[in-house]
């Protein structure tokens, strides 16, 4: 009987108008949202993390507080960090290395075009090696800087593919004007996947200090702990030392020491919020979709009153009529779910590809067949559930009234 009801319902669905299909939009959107969200999986997190410049898991960063919100880190600080703090941090026993980083806003002129952006300093000696390790990749073209280079820079990837607003890409060997001073480009850093690295001009520390007249001002101190499992202890040590040097009480710090875990945690918090929002939207859509099915099935019961009467006059029991409408509603839901699952998977795959090409990663979409299976079952059940009341109304039709139409 159930198989027969399925076949009958399928035949009825085949003859449905566009109005019925529109009511599926809710379920379709809901399932699409959930499936694509899960198919994207970790891709989303990675994409966001990289946009925040968190590429390393073993660096603690120290910045001055009181940031105005404009400009690069540390630049708006009321009381900037200096080499004094740098030296003090370097002496802490749990700190293996503390590196001076400066970031400054400036203008770059090439081929008579001017763009504004940021320059970042590259330290010398061992620290240089360390920073290059953090950047992970080498030069995509030309080379990176050496200690002996003066008046030379290497550029972020976006200069190479001209995404920074110049009329022409820059390659090694070309001369550029930075804050009206000429520098030679020695190479291009490989793509990092975030404008934080890819839009930047890198120059040796000494050039940077001279050009921007930095003196002993330090924008960021990048700290490598002795033991990367003791991040929090190292962080506490740094905070204690800085409080003493800068003469501030605990709780009134005018500097920020952040560990990658903390940054990741805050990003994950944001992402969890986004995910929760999408899930809520999905559930609201599915609920609206279910209401749509209630609506379309109720209309359908009214429209097919005559048909119900015929069925009853030729021997249909109430269960037959109920099952037919119940399954029809379920199939409507299933169809919405099916389209949603397909589109969701597609979005997941495309989204992952997008993230891959954006941050240069090699992520695989997370296609979970169990999830798809259960979302299809779920859509059927939601549809069927929505169909219960209309189906009951249909089955309780009096054959004489139904035949009269």
């Amino acid at each position, binding site marked *: 009987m159930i198989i027969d009801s399925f076949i009958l319902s399928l*035949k009825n669905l085949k*003859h449905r108008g566009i109005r019925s299909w529109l009511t599926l939009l809710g379920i379709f959107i809901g399932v699409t949202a959930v499936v694509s969200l899960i198919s994207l999986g970790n891709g989303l997190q990675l994409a966001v993390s990289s946009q925040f410049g968190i590429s390393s898991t073993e660096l603690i960063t120290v910045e001055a507080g009181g940031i105005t919100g404009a400009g690069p880190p540390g630049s708006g600080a009321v009381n900037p960090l200096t080499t004094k703090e740098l030296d003090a941090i370097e002496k802490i026993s749990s700190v293996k290395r503390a590196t001076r980083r400066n970031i400054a806003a400036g203008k770059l002129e090439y081929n008579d075009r001017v763009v504004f952006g940021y320059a970042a300093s590259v330290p010398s000696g061992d620290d240089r090696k360390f920073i290059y390790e953090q950047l992970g990749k080498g030069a995509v073209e030309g080379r990176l800087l050496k200690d002996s280079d003066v008046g030379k820079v290497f550029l972020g990837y976006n200069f190479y593919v001209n995404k920074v607003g110049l009329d022409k890409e820059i390659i090694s060997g070309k001369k550029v004007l930075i804050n009206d001073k000429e520098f030679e480009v020695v190479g291009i850093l490989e793509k990092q996947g975030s404008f934080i690295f890819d839009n930047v001009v890198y120059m040796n520390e000494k050039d940077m200090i001279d050009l921007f007249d930095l003196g002993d001002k330090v924008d960021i101190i990048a700290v490598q702990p002795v033991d990367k499992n003791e991040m929090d202890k190292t962080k506490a040590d740094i905070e204690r030392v800085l409080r003493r040097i800068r003469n501030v009480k605990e709780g009134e710090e005018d500097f920020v020491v952040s560990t990658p875990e903390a940054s990741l945690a805050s990003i994950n918090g944001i992402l969890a919020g986004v995910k929760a929002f999408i899930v809520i939207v999905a559930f609201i859509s599915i609920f609206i979709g279910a209401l749509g099915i209630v609506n379309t099935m109720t209309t359908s019961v009214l429209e097919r009153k005559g*048909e119900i009467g015929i069925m009853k*006059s030729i*021997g249909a029991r109430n269960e037959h009529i109920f099952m037919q409408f119940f399954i029809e509603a379920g199939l409507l839901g299933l169809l919405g779910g099916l389209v949603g699952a397909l589109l969701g998977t597609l979005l997941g795959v495309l989204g992952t590809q997008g993230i891959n090409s954006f941050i240069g990663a090699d992520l695989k979409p997370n296609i979970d067949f169990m999830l798809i299976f259960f979302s299809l079952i779920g859509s059927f059940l939601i549809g069927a559930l929505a169909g219960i009341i209309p189906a009951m109304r249909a089955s309780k039709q009096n054959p*004489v009234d139904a*035949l009269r139409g």
Partner: protein
Amino acid sequence: MKEGENIIIELKNVYKHYHMGENLVRAVDGVSLKVMEGEFVAIMGPSGSGKSTCMNLVGSLDVPTKGRIFLDGDDISTLSESDLAQIRGKKIGFIFQSFNLIPNLTAKENIMIPMMFQGEDVYIRENKAEELLKLVELADRGNHYPNELSGGQRQRVAIARALANDPEVILADEPTGNLDTKTGHIVMEFLEKLNHEGRTIIMVTHDPDLAQAHADIVYWLKDGKIEKTTKKKNGWSKTGKEKLRELKEERRK
């Protein structure tokens, strides 16, 4: 009535009253009648005579306000709606004025539906449907949808559907009402043929000529009451009776 003949449908002093706004409508007002196996019965009456209500009662689609209706010996008021539907589907085949085929199903599927409700296997349904399509001379139209068929063809599909469960009674409500004279004749010939094969036919009509031309017994309905009953001179068709006997013996084998 002769002894040993089975009563298929019996109405015992049946009333059907309903309210239409303020007015009480006495659609059927004390009707008693018996339909015997193998008879061709016509219920004749002008519109408003209560013949539609009467047909619903005879076809056990509706329950009376007062009085009792027996379908093959069972008092229909003692049956649940679903059980009644099941018995109705088995014992009565309906033919409606407006054909009442299900538009989303092909001719063949329409014929298969009543068997589905009786729980027949799908291959039995298919075979039977094809057989019936041949019987109504529509073997090549099985996969057509009702809107692709002419009125006469649709009514023949409806006749085939009515026969699907081998019912004892065919209940035809104005079977020629929506057809031109010629196709009407064809449909009536089918009904006659079915009667000759031993099936009980109950036809509801407003057309006295049609009723008298085909039926053995005509109940003339007026204002919810049977005004008179007329019989064909020679009673009901002998050949029908003989055929019925043969058919029954065949079934017994």
